[in-house]
């Protein structure tokens, strides 16, 4: 170790000690503010290095810098981890996060100490000769010192007790590995994969691979981060965007700063803006990156300007920048850190883009005209885009000279409007993506709920299907679609075994809605319906086994014969062959259909179709026979037979539930009736009470119909 090492260690130790003594008992806020100040000084001390040519940048091939190849590799990796740690420190201070603090303790401090020990080697790439003291050396010494001071400061003053466990450590390790890989300096790439040759070409395999990598990364990061808390996700995105800014800034190392090298190129600007957008969460700033920079990144992937072998310096730098420019804003919205873009944000993004365009055009024109530099901001000043879309050459050829300044008005305005159209298309694409993702997530949740219900039912104790209550409506409510009004409002009723239950109501009262909900045609909005103890919501298949339904519109498959239709229904209810044949033969005799049962139903009259529907509903001997206006259109003989069979059916211990407008029939047939009006259950009446008393069902019904 040299003298300089001792100076650094001494300075660091004294400063840490002083800070510890002074601030030990101060408030956390004060300690944090001091730490933030140290970060600011650290960044200032680092800044000159960005302007200095580093011998490691551009050092490639077989030249040995540090005496041996092993030394070269060691120093290379030390600088890599140092570079990574440099990004960790500000995040650990500004965003209170235990993960980063642990990283500081386990990685940053050892790296800092190693850097101090190997300080003289670290001077070599900076071109500092032994014994010579210059500004670069002083700044570097301050940088290393502040690095150490801050690391220990975080350990001693900002970090509470650390808990160790193997699982936590392993989790921490692999994530840290990924973070380190993410912050690989491009000089390391260059050193490992050779010189950066640039091929000018379109759609080379390596350009495509980088695009595929981008897509895969978006998906992987989304799935990986989704399960964490919003705070963790935010920190992760912050780290990624900071790394992006860092990596972009490192590109400037050693390059001359002049008028032409100002980062006005859209993607270059975006690389720095993204971090500030995430850090500040300012919508105007963020949605600029979300709309404008994402379009820029996509356009770059579509029309890259250079290529090389996959991991050579230039392709990595080029693709890295655009990959994360694309990825960070998209993940920020999809992981819920920023809300989805709305039209208002589009307006402000377009205004910001327009301002950017004017600046890029104006500044670029002036620089091109009055300096020796020829920047090509936003590709407005050369024919790169015209080369891709050859017909544009004609437009590009139209120029306008104002003094020394050259404009290509139609070409440049065309690029502006073309980009606006792309932004608008991207917005449409986002809209479609949101809708699709929402729908898929909703369906996945619905399926999870259903599976959990199925599991619960499977594990539940067997139900007693002989219980007295055959049909139970529990606070049943029904609303159609997205309407605000309920068609049926809170009906609770029970129908017992062996009952003929009438369901009456005025037109539009909600009778058919209720019946259709009971048989499963309409989904239940609120409440539940149980058939023989089985919930229609949670266990619909089991519940439906007990139902036989006759619809009001006698809908049957008209191309089938009567026999084929009934047989089909019997198949769906899995009625055994002998049972179905005997029941079928009995019913067709009862309803006088023998002569027509093998004709297509299309040739039947209304009454005959109704009879077929009734036979089909009875073929499996349902526990609960539901009929919606069953007697409409039937001849007297058939009406009599149906009424007779209703009584027979209930005598066997089954239940009949039907709606009708013919009050005389209901009065004679039913044991109990319910009357419904405007979706409300107005009352349940025992027919015995009407027989005993003076009132009739008709009077009661009319009084309900007239009431509010």
């Amino acid at each position, binding site marked *: 170790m040299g003298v300089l090492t001792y100076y650094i260690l001494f300075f660091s130790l004294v400063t840490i000690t002083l800070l510890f003594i002074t601030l030990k008992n101060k408030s956390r806020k004060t300690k944090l503010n001091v730490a933030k100040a140290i970060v600011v000084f650290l960044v200032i001390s680092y800044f000159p290095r960005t302007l200095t040519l580093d011998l490691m940048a551009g050092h490639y091939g077989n030249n040995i810098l540090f005496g041996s190849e092993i030394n070269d590799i060691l120093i290379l990796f030390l600088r890599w981890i140092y570079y990574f740690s440099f990004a960790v420190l500000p995040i650990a201070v500004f965003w209170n996060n235990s993960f980063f603090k642990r990283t500081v303790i386990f990685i940053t401090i050892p790296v800092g100490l190693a850097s101090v020990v190997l300080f003289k080697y670290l001077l070599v790439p900076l071109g500092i000769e032994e014994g010579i003291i210059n500004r670069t050396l002083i700044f570097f010494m301050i940088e290393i010192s502040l690095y150490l001071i801050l690391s220990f400061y975080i350990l001693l003053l900002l970090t509470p007790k650390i808990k160790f466990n193997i699982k936590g450590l392993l989790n921490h390790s692999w994530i840290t590995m990924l973070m380190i890989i993410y912050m690989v300096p491009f000089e390391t790439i260059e050193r490992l994969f050779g010189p950066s040759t640039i091929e000018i070409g379109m759609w080379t395999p390596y350009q495509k691979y980088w695009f595929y990598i981008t897509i895969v990364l978006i998906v992987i990061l989304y799935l990986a981060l989704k399960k964490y808390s919003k705070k963790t996700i935010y920190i992760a995105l912050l780290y990624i965007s900071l790394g992006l800014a860092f990596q972009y800034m490192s590109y400037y190392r050693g390059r001359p700063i002049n008028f032409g090298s100002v980062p006005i190129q859209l993607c270059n600007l975006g690389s720095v803006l993204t971090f500030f957008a995430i850090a500040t969460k300012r919508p105007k700033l963020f949605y600029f990156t979300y709309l404008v920079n994402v379009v820029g990144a996509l356009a770059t992937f579509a029309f890259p300007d250079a290529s090389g072998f996959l991991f050579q310096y230039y392709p990595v730098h080029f693709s890295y920048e655009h990959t994360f420019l694309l990825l960070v804003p998209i993940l920020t919205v999809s992981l819920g850190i920023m809300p989805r873009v709305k039209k208002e944000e589009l307006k402000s993004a377009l205004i910001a883009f327009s301002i950017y365009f004017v600046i890029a055009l104006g500044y670029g024109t002036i620089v091109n005209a009055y300096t020796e530099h020829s920047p090509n901001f936003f590709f407005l000043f050369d024919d790169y885009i015209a080369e891709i879309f050859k017909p544009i050459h004609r437009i590009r050829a139209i120029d306008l000279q104002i003094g020394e300044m050259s404009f290509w008005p139609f070409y440049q305005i065309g690029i502006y409007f073309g980009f606006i159209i792309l932004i608008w298309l991207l917005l449409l694409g986002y809209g479609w993506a949101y809708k699709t993702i929402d729908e898929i997530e909703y369906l996945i949740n619905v399926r999870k709920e259903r599976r959990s219900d199925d599991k619960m039912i499977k594990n539940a104790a067997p139900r007693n299907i002989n219980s007295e209550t055959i049909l139970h409506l529990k606070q049943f409510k029904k609303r159609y679609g997205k309407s605000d009004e309920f068609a049926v409002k809170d009906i609770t009723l029970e129908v017992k075994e062996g009952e003929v239950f009438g369901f009456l109501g005025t037109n539009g009262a909600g009778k058919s809605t209720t019946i259709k909900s009971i048989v499963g045609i309409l*989904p239940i909005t609120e409440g539940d319906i149980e058939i023989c103890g089985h919930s229609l919501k949670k266990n619909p*298949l089991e519940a*439906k086994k007990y139902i036989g339904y006759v619809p009001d519109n006698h809908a049957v498959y008209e191309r089938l014969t009567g026999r084929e239709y009934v047989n089909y*229904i019997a198949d769906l209810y899995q009625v055994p*062959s002998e049972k179905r*044949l005997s029941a079928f033969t009995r019913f067709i005799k009862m309803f006088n259909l023998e002569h027509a049962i093998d004709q297509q139903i299309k040739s039947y009259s209304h009454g005959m179709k109704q009879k077929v529907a009734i036979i089909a509903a009875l073929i499996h001997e349902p526990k609960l026979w539901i009929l919606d206006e069953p007697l409409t259109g039937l001849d007297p003989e058939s009406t009599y037979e149906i009424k007779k069979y209703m009584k027979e059916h209930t005598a066997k211990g089954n239940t009949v539930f039907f709606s009708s407008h013919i009050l005389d029939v209901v009065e004679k047939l039913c044991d109990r009736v319910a009357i419904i009006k405007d979706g409300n259950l107005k009352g349940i009446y025992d027919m015995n009470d009407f027989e005993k008393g003076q009132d009739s069902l008709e009077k009661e019904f009319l009084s309900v119909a007239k009431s509010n």
Partner: protein
Amino acid sequence: MKRIIDMFLMQFNETYSFHKKEKLQKTLIRTFYRIVLFALAFLIMKSFLGFLMGFLGLVINKNFIVFLILGIQLFQIMFLLGYTTKSIFLSNDLPILLNMPVKTHEILFSKLLLIILREIHATVLYTIIIVLAASHIVSFSLLSVISLILFLIMLSILSSLLSVIFSIVILKVRIFFKGKLVLTYISSFVGFIIFSTFLAYIAFNIIDIIGFASNRVFMTIKLNQTIAYVGENIWLSRRYLDFIFLENTWFLSSLFIIGSGLSLLYIVYILGKHIYFDLVSNANLYFKRKQKKQISKMTSRNTLRAIIYKDILNIYREPGYMFQYLLLPIMMPFLIFLYNQLFQSIDTNQLGDQMIVGANVMLIILVSSISNVISSTGFSRAGKNAYLVKVVPVPYKTEVKSKIYMNLVISTMSILITYTIGIVSGMFELSFGLLTLIPILLINFAHIMWSYDLDISDPSLNWHNEEEMIVSKNISKSIMLGMFIAIFFGLFIMISLGSSTSVSTWIKFYVYAGILFYIRTTLLNLKYNHYINTLEM
């Protein structure tokens, strides 16, 4: 006359919901879009005709315009026939109209007005663009252009009148075949053979022309000669020409055209007065067969087989469904064979061979996806019987499987037969068969699932007769989807074979087909239960 107008307006408001008030801004925006689209279509058509002039040496002059008009008239009548038959004799509002205190010919005329309006609308939208583009190239005078437009509108009226008369013949045939299923299918089979033979005749003639040494020049000469012949020698063309361009026998031509119109109108009036009511009644009668002895037993089946058997019976007993579902699968091997004969007659370089490979993939996917109508109407076909799906204790999965399996079996067999014929006849190489069969089957399966997905997302259950069902909107959505998928994969193969190795192309083809299949399977699995559950009927 007033009654005719009232009935027409009643039907018009029912068909086109113009009574709905719309904001002025919206109307203006819509109008603006339409004008832009019209202008765009005009430019595209003009460019296309210009391209034909340059590439084929087509001569665009008055004869060409008349040739175009005659062709348009022929197609107009052909396409109108189905709609006219349905509208005049089979529409749902006939019981309401016949119940009114109006004369039967007044009902016919009210419907005729609607047909004419529809035709004029189609003429303005499509036909005028083509004809205007052609006339612009030939630089007609403004008077000629106005005359042309007016003539096209008159032609719409003539075509409508002719289609009404021909529709009676169609209806008579329909009534004759009613209830005679076996005869219907035999006749259809014979018709199919005749049509296929005719198609093959034309195709092989074209192949001969293409195979001729100086094929392009020869084609151009033949085409221009045909157009000139039609324009100069056919009496009807001369009358049209003279009328439009106010030439020589303009007065006589006008008399002929107007006279024809009036005569046709009078014939329709007579038909409306004397036979319209009988035709309508006969068209809508149910057919009753004589009672036969018991012809079907009460065989018990599992639920999946029961649903499939029911669907097969329904489809078999409705010839419209049979044609819709089976025509293309049966024709696919034949179409692909013809297509390949056409292209094998052209000398191609390596690029051309690659394009043919891609085009074959595109065509097979296209035809098989157009024929996946069973799935795109899988749920809608039940109509008012769809309630059964939700009432019976059968998992929705069984219902979904029944529709998809049926479609899958038919389309897979069709594809396999196509490949077998292709390989045996030397149309395809064995390597093509081995490399493309599985991805195409996967893509087809994915399309079937996607079509069914479209149907359960937005089923059309409120149809009253099979004709309405057969033109369900989900069918057109499914066909458009199939087209996009076919074009995507076809172009992908063409471009990829040209720019990268064939191995990577085929690997990517398998991967993309697999991804499409996986995505559609997953989405359908996620959706079907929820969608059917929440459907409100």
